[in-house]
């Protein structure tokens, strides 16, 4: 026997979510089915609202429900430092440190010719336009230490350095509080490569 059509439809939609397989989708659908109607409505509305209201900041491409995001609007942030990230999730990770006081630029991905992603698919042109203003003195590139992340960082540095702006990259190496003993070889090799003078 198959599920009744509306239920089957919900399961199929949930299965499209990242990390959700048929079993989890089924569990979620049953959960939704048992929810009070009010709660289900709130969920449905939240989904619609996110689609209607969330856009990207026209400066940094962070998610926002206004034209310019609160980070870009905050006058106490240091506009001479720009941190380039691939994704809004990376921006949030750096924000959580509460240490970084500069601004951001969200590229919306990394360069990957295999996936058809080149500079035109990313917010590279917009980044260069922002840098033209002359306010920015340093660009910190914060990409994941993958082959694509490194290639994107290299590419950006080649574009930005000729503008006379300092380009830096997040260090790759030992996790803080980590044990040398437990570090995997790639991390250790990278930490050796990135060692610095004491």
């Amino acid at each position, binding site marked *: 026997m198959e599920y009744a059509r509306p239920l089957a439809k919900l399961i199929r939609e949930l299965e499209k979510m990242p990390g959700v397989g048929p079993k989890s989708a089924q569990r979620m659908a049953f959960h939704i089915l048992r929810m009070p109607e009010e709660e289900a409505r709130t969920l449905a509305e939240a989904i619609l609202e996110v689609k209607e209201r969330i856009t990207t900041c026209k400066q940094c491409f962070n998610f926002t429900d206004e034209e310019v995001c609160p980070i870009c609007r905050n006058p106490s942030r240091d506009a001479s430092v720009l941190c380039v990230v691939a994704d809004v999730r990376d921006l949030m990770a750096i924000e959580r440190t509460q240490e970084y006081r500069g601004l951001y630029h969200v590229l919306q991905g990394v360069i990957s010719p295999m996936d058809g992603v080149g500079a035109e698919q990313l917010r590279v042109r917009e980044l260069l336009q922002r840098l033209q203003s002359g306010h920015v003195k340093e660009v910190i590139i914060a990409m994941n230490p993958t*082959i694509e992340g490194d290639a994107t960082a290299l590419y950006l540095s080649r574009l930005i350095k000729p503008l006379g702006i300092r380009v830096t990259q997040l260090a790759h190496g030992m996790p803080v509080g980590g044990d040398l003993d437990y570090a995997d070889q790639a991390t250790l090799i990278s930490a050796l490569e990135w060692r610095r003078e004491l």
Partner: protein
Amino acid sequence: MYLTHLQLKNFRNYECLHLEPDAGLNLITGENAQGKTNLLEAIYLLATGRPLRAGREEELIRWGAEDATVYAHIHRERSLEVQVQIDLSRTQPRVVRVDGQTYRAALALGQFNVVVFSAMDMEIVRGQPADRRRYLDLEISMLSPTYVRALAGYRRALEQRNRLLKSIRESGGAITPSTIELLEAWDEQLVRYGSGVMVARERFISALRPLARQAHSELSEGREELDIRYAPSIEWVSPEREQVAECFRQHIQRVREEELRRGSTLIGPQRDDLLLFVDGKEARTYASQGQQRTAMLSLKRAEFELTLQERQEPPIVLLDDVMSDLDDLRRTQLLRMTLRGAQAFITATSAETFPQEILAASRMYRVQDGQIQLVSRP
């Protein structure tokens, strides 16, 4: 190093097997297609993470079964005993366990070393450059886990760069300054990983070379001379990482236009070859079958010696049905290697081809239809 236990569950044609092999010679006889090679393959898989024969991983699982397990307990002189297990499944990615800890597959390499010799190895001498690169990659991976990463990184960078070159070509060759910057970013990735791969290959071949020459001289009783040479697609003066990287970088510049025109990467480790010469002539084309076989045997002997040097203990020797193809001298030479304290697993259709002294020193098994039976002990 030697296996003290080998256990198979649903692996190839073995439903269930528990073997406690001899620390020295193990002779496995049986008719064709009974499961002799499968036994060697299980050991090979645990050492290298790869199957011995080409094919899909699923083919390692017994017909009708959903998953398979290969497990071995290894005694090592120079480090602690270790247990390696690989779980294969038709639906899940494989799981590698070392002493019960789960690892990503690449890191399981190198827990113990094997030197394998089967009829297919003749492809190293006779076959294409790709066969020899595969050989190099496997051998170096067993001795250096970091090589596995450099190689994986290189393959990825190469694939990305090829895709980029192809898309530039398909766009009608409109090359903007930004395209060049993009390509240069991928050049740098290619150089970073590629120079690591080439330096490792260069080092491995230079270490193998004197050992292979020595072995060949012994095997041919001084009548023939073997030489092996690394043939990379770029030239460098000294094999230092930075030097090699710089030469690679410069060479990429020189072939830039050609690469843009063809839409693919033209130089790098994917074009490497390992050249074998017998008496100054390239073995692939000019050596007789007998000479090729001796060259192959010398290479295997050299591998054995190199592992012994690096690991300070002999690797496990796997000889898959090669004894019958060899003459008495070469057979004795090959077995001499196994007699130097190494554990060996030797398969043959019958025990008749073996010298009496070997038979007397071996633990003998008979394989029939996925069942193994102990015939005699030394």
